[in-house]
């Protein structure tokens, strides 16, 4: 890995009136990564993408795409991005799909006409259809054609699978994998359905109420956020340092189950040192591991 970032934000903050949408976010998306940004609705995922495209103003901090400031170099940044907005509404609802695709082709010098034709076929776009008459799923498919056909080096996909039925969703994600094999691309996907894009993700960021509470590689997340099943003496109290590292726990008699963050070797040693016998160290699915950061006990 070259160590360069396709996307980097530095202390990025956005406020809507008195409400904080993003609070000092330092997002780092390495070039070539498929980075999945997870969080509840309203956590700041869409705002992050809009700031990167300069569609949303920032209150503090800055953002760079391929080293270009997103405010000072907005048009250059946007030319390098394929974007699927969260909204299914389209500004050109009165156009036919074919007309809209021509319109986009004229806009991007890098438009690949042959590839666009292939995508239109793959995603079954009816060129004569009026954009306004498309269903949610059809709109998503049209947006995918528009985002991919100019082979941009960065894809910003805001809930890309929203509205797609399971069959189309799988075909779309498989197609995205092929696209990445053919075109060097960095992908930033926001979703609250991480299991839908789980296998594709190699980096994960977790947004919680405007704060980026976790950011790491998939492998690191799965290695360091695991569930420990422990046997404990009656009335056992966890040592203080583990109380802060614990994300979720449940108790049943002398057995406790705990999701903890840290090197499993260290955590196991600490638990043993505190009088608990570790019975099982179980990996979590990517979704469970990411969601652990959204649990209420995070800083308890």
């Amino acid at each position: 890995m070259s160590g360069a970032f396709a996307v980097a934000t530095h202390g990025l903050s956005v406020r809507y009136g008195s409400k904080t949408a993003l609070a000092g976010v330092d997002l780092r998306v390495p070039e070539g990564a498929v980075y999945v940004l997870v969080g509840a609705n309203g956590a700041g995922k869409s705002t992050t993408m809009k700031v990167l495209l300069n569609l949303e103003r920032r209150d503090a901090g800055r953002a760079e795409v391929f080293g270009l400031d997103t405010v000072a170099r907005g048009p250059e940044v946007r030319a390098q991005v394929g974007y699927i907005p969260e909204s299914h509404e389209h500004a050109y609802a009165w156009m036919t799909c074919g007309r809209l695709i021509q319109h986009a082709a004229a806009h991007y010098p890098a438009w690949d006409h042959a590839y666009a034709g292939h995508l239109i076929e793959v995603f079954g776009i009816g060129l004569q259809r009026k954009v306004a008459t498309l269903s949610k799923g059809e709109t998503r498919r049209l947006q995918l054609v528009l985002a991919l056909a100019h082979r941009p080096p960065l894809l910003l996909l805001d809930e890309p699978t929203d509205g797609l039925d399971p069959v189309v969703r799988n075909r779309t994600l498989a197609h995205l994998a092929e696209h990445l094999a053919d075109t060097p691309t960095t992908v930033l996907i926001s979703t609250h359905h991480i299991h839908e894009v789980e296998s594709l993700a190699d980096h994960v960021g977790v947004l919680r109420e405007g704060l980026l509470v976790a950011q790491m590689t998939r492998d690191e997340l799965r290695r360091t956020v695991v569930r420990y099943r422990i046997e404990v003496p009656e009335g056992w109290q966890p040592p203080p340092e583990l109380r802060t590292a614990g994300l979720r726990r449940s108790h049943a008699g002398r057995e406790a189950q705990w999701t903890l963050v840290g090197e499993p070797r260290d955590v196991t040693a600490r638990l043993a040192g505190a009088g608990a016998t570790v019975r099982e160290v179980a990996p979590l699915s990517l979704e469970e591991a990411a969601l652990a950061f959204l649990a209420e006990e995070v800083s308890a």
Partner: protein
Amino acid sequence: MLVNLDPNDGRPLYLQIMDEVRRAIVVGTLRAEDPLPSVRELAAELVVNPRTVSQAYQELEREGIVYVRRGQGTFVSPSVRRGGGERRRNLAREVAKRALLEARRNGLDTEELVMAIQKLAAEEEDK
């Protein structure tokens, strides 16, 4: 060759892909000079980042299990023989590791597990 990824397996995806290739060689579904699926094909089939597949193939190449023919793809090395001793031992080790983990989870020690396996195997042979 069929490659399956287990979403409950905590190991990195590239290691899982490597293991699937090794297993296919041990059981004989992949033989010397057989082509591996292209990075593009396997990435689309598994819905993973193509870079994950590339990483698995590069590691396998480093281990001498596969080699790259420029412009043609990745192939199983001619020296690889089905069920080579070391490869079988490694596979057995992985299977044993999983069994051991499961035993510990259930509060069983190694001896109890080994005895149970031997008893079960003897019973199955009698059938």
